[in-house]
């Protein structure tokens, strides 16, 4: 496991991520990235790291994580609009709301595995989507979305421009560090064992269902933080936050980046958002076709995503160095 590993070895991914994230405003414009997109990338890094705790560790593919993202976004919007413009209570309430919903959905859906679990989570998310569109439209704004929030504040700091970016980046770094700690804790080991052999795990004295629920709820909490930050980034909540398209995008980002690696899904998120917002300008209307081809290429030739490519390159370098 990691008997002889130093602090650097254990935390190098977090340190490197922190360096890349905090210096992003300096280098991102050099590759045509615009201000604001960097914040969105950080928000999706949080979403994807959390999603990987469920999909990457336990192997359970949720097609309904937009529910937690959207519920948190609406909660944050309503808190900012009706109670306080301070983002801290808004984020806390948003995470609590999404967590409670996640516990209920998790208890109901985790009785099933594979495609049945995926479909059940999708069904729940669609249920929330239709509720936001119809039953709850007085609060959610229905088709038009939730608007009219004041400029969010972090106590006395106006959350605009670089303040939003650095707040989001710091949250992403902290939450990535937490995810890495979970990964190398006994809990992380049990979660990964669920993916390997759930029957053996139960016959080894472990209540796999509780660990699955824990992974589900933690990943929902990450999605909730991302959803809340999305409102801080842009004071608007649309019904599409809860839609299946949002859930599907997260799955594609994970697969492109490399499921189960924590870092990979963040790279997948950055790549997809950069592609969607920057490269698409050069590619014109064909950008979705190109993105589809890239996705197919990755799934067919690199099922481990971009992280598999990184591993292959690393191995090649090591082999070359050894032979020399």
């Amino acid at each position: 496991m990691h008997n002889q590993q130093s602090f650097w070895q254990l935390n190098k991914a977090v340190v490197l991520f922190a360096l890349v994230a905090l210096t992003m405003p300096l280098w991102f414009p050099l590759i045509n990235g615009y201000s604001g997109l960097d914040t969105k990338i950080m928000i999706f890094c949080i979403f994807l790291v959390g999603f990987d705790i469920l999909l990457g560790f336990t192997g359970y593919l949720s097609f309904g994580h937009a529910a937690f993202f959207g519920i948190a976004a609406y909660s944050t919007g309503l808190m900012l609009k009706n109670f306080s413009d301070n983002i801290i209570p808004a984020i806390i309430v948003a995470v609590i709301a999404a967590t409670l919903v996640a516990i209920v959905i998790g208890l109901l859906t985790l009785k099933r595995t594979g495609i049945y679990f995926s479909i059940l989570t999708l069904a729940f998310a669609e249920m929330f989507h239709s509720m936001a569109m119809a039953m709850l439209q007085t609060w959610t704004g229905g088709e038009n979305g939730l608007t009219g929030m004041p400029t969010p504040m972090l106590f006395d700091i106006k959350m605009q421009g670089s303040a939003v970016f650095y707040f989001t980046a710091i949250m992403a770094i902290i939450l990535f560090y937490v995810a890495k700690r979970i990964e190398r804790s006994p809990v992380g080991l049990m979660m990964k064992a669920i993916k390997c052999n759930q029957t053996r795990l139960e016959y080894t004295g472990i209540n796999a269902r509780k660990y699955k629920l824990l992974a589900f709820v933690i990943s929902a909490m990450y999605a909730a933080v991302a959803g809340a930050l999305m409102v801080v980034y842009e004071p608007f909540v649309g019904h599409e936050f809860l839609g299946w398209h949002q859930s599907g995008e997260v799955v594609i980002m994970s697969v492109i980046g490399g499921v189960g690696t924590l870092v990979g899904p963040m790279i997948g998120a950055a790549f997809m958002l950069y592609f969607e917002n920057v490269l698409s300008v050069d590619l014109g209307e064909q950008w979705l076709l190109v993105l589809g081809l890239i996705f197919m290429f990755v799934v067919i030739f690199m099922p481990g995503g971009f992280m598999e490519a990184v591993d292959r390159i690393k191995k090649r370098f090591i082999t070359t160095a050894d032979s020399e």
Partner: protein
Amino acid sequence: MTILDIHQVSLSFGGLKALQNVNLKIGQGTTHALIGPNGAGKSTLLNVLTGMLKPDDGSVMFDGKPLLDVNSFDINQLGIAKVFQTPAIFPEMTVLQNVTIPVFAARDGSFRMNMLEGFSKQRPLIEFAEEQICELGLEKHMHSIAGSLSRGDKRRLEMAICLANKPRLLLLDEPTAGMARHETEKTIELLQGMKDGITKVIVEHDMNVVFSLAEKISVLAQGQIIAEGSPDEIKGHPKVIEAYLGEAQV
């Protein structure tokens, strides 16, 4: 002293009576073999003991506690571990990770939310897991991916997983199935050399393994126990020869 008391256990699958009023008492620290022809109900009985199957009738007591209607993981936490017919390991994990899981389970119970536990607290447990791996002769494979091991090594890894749980009762479902002769010999040695105090129940077709290990043998045929006794008594038992051993000419 009896550690496992199976009383009047019956189980049917539709019209098929897999177990019929099975009574069995297993003494603490003994090695007890269950033999019988294919379809006799041996593996079914083990599955009842591990909570995988619920019998229609009867009771099972382990160390004075009822076992029926208890979850598999709670049965394991009571001190019962099972070696499956096909080695059940965590194939994508390293050998060390495979054995660390039951060590954590023995310390933390079936669930504990120690999500941010540091390495210093894990270290003594990981060292214990390493010792278990060395005891089973798998030290060369400590950091190998478990799925890449040979069948014999996978079986030994599975035993290491079970032993790391510190069980009081070890159920072995055909522990030498599919093994080469030298691997079977090694497994016999391993089971003979196991720490005292662990009660073992072995389901096995290989009579060499059974007679090398068992102190007592129960013979199942068509879901019923037709004979019980020491290896010598079983060898000469006419019902057993008729039902099972006759084919093997033991």
